[in-house]
């Protein structure tokens, strides 16, 4: 039953660049991973001095297709509103790089790829990876691309965790850092939500103890439930109410059954079932685990500011008022810790009722704030000014 023919092709034809690094990557757990493939995209051109790189870090279910049209979904890239010619991360001025995270399922080395030792998909034999491991892999990619110091590392949610890790681990390689809607650690509540998602996947019999690719099954229901639960945490009560209220779905009365009577149910089901077409269940387990393990304070003697003593990095922390997954208080804690080491830090909360997802949406105040930070930092870095429209 583990014949080759039953193995679901672990990679669909994914556009974008690939880099395979032969040297083993020593993971935070101590395990060694080799070779490591990084799937990535670049936008814009590197300048002669190599000083204009912007590294964008994606969130849990994001990928490296930040801008333009996504080659698989056909929809705009997840930060297309921010990345492009003349936009905040102006590809006429900056060399924008984004890589699928280690452990991901869009081409970078992860549990659905083939384990070179066995010739079968990694599945649960894939080592547990951390945010630090993701960042180490990105650093290796930037080495390959010839980028010494990154002008700005920017990302939201899990991307913000990577930004924090970059600034902590490689302060000399980061000129500016913009962690958005993020934190320095995953809270107990966030770990709890992730555990619900993981349990939903693992409770699906089609998960097959992680061997679904070998067994030719797919734990779609489990992954869909995980996505449904998580999706609620990305929104706010206000946003849900405004969008759906108690409105009924394609019917004028309650059915007195368990069909999706309410629009909000139908919406969540849709979110769940479209997600399974694009995401690998084991990847979901590994990446959520990486977020759970992240705690920059704990790693530094329980004092977050210890992680940034003497940091030369310019920070801009941005949170959203209705985000209860990574609330403003988390960004404020980071701001206080950075103040304690006299770091150069800006901290702004954007008024929005759209919850955590606001960082992915076109929020004008968010855009103008990030624009101000990027332009101010570019000015100090001696990069060309934005062409005034």
């Amino acid at each position: 039953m583990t014949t080759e023919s039953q193995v679901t092709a672990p990679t669909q034809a994914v556009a974008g660049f690939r880099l395979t690094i032969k040297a083993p990557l020593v993971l935070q757990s101590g395990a060694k991973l080799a070779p490591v493939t990084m799937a990535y995209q670049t936008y814009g051109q590197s300048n002669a001095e190599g000083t204009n790189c912007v590294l964008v870090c994606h969130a849990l279910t994001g990928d490296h297709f930040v801008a333009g049209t996504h080659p698989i979904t056909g929809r705009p890239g997840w930060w297309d509103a921010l990345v492009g010619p003349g936009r905040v991360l102006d590809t006429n001025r900056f060399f924008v790089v984004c890589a699928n995270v280690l452990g991901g399922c869009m081409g970078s080395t992860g549990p659905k790829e083939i384990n070179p030792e066995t010739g079968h998909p990694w599945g649960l034999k894939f080592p547990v990876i951390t945010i630090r491991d993701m960042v180490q892999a990105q650093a290796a990619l930037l080495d390959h691309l010839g980028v010494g110091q990154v002008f700005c590392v920017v990302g939201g949610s899990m991307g913000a965790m990577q930004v924090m890790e970059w600034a902590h681990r490689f302060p000399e390689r980061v000129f500016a850092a913009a962690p958005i809607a993020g934190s320095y650690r995953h809270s107990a509540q966030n770990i709890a939500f992730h555990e619900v998602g993981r349990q939903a996947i693992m409770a699906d019999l089609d998960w097959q103890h992680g061997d679904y690719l070998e067994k030719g099954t797919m734990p779609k229901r489990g992954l869909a439930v995980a996505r449904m639960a998580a999706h609620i945490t990305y929104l706010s009560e206000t946003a849900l109410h405004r969008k759906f209220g108690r409105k009924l779905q394609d019917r004028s009365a309650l059915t007195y059954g368990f069909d999706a009577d309410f629009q909000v149910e139908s919406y969540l089901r849709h979110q769940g079932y479209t997600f399974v077409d694009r995401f690998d269940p084991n990847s979901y387990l590994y990446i959520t685990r990486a977020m759970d393990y992240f705690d920059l304070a704990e790693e530094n003697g329980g004092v977050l500011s210890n992680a940034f003593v003497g940091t030369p990095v310019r920070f801009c922390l941005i949170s959203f008022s209705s985000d209860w997954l990574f609330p403003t208080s988390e960004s404020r804690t980071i701001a206080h810790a950075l103040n304690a080491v006299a770091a150069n830090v800006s901290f702004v909360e954007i008024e929005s009722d759209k919850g955590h997802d606001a960082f992915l949406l076109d929020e004008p105040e968010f855009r103008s704030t990030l624009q101000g930070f990027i332009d101010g930092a570019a000015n100090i870095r001696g990069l060309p000014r934005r062409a005034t429209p």
Partner: protein
Amino acid sequence: MTQTPPKIRVDLQQVADLVPAGSRVLDVGCGDGALLAYLGAHKQVDGRGLELSMARVRAAVTQGLSVIQGNLEADLKDYPSGAFDYAILSQTLQATHRPKDVLEQLLRIGKRAIISFPNFAHWRIRLSIVLGGRMPVTPTLADAWYDTPNIHLCTILDFVDLCRHLNVRIERGYALDGRGLPHSFSPLAPYANFFSEQAVFVLTR
């Protein structure tokens, strides 16, 4: 993008003139960052700001300034000692709950503090209370008693007393008129407490 900012308010100009080029500055209650932008553009100052109003913080960060949202009475304690050459507090001391603690924090964080405040002993204010029998509403204290954020108003003499009490050295000072322009006399002159509407002091420990 940091552009050359236009002229700034006269009282801020007065404060800006007290800051040497190339200093590290914390502007506490920096508003939309007018002073920081000016100091950055004209004096190559490495400036940071702390501001209560999120809208003003956004306005400052949008200009490329390094400003965080926070409450000065809660947040000043986070900053390490001696982190800045100058800690600046313009026209805000009288609106704090514990001005003495704020002053001490500013002098801990900054090697020097620049403090400006309205003088409650100006003759117009005295007249308003003594003859008018009402709380003063003047160009420098423009709010009615029920609207004013100022809860700890003081006079120049009161402030000088507090500095003495805290063993704080007054390095420089200016007596200012209602528009913020300096008088020819020192704020420590006997009649300054009667004739100046505001004052600005450079303090150190």
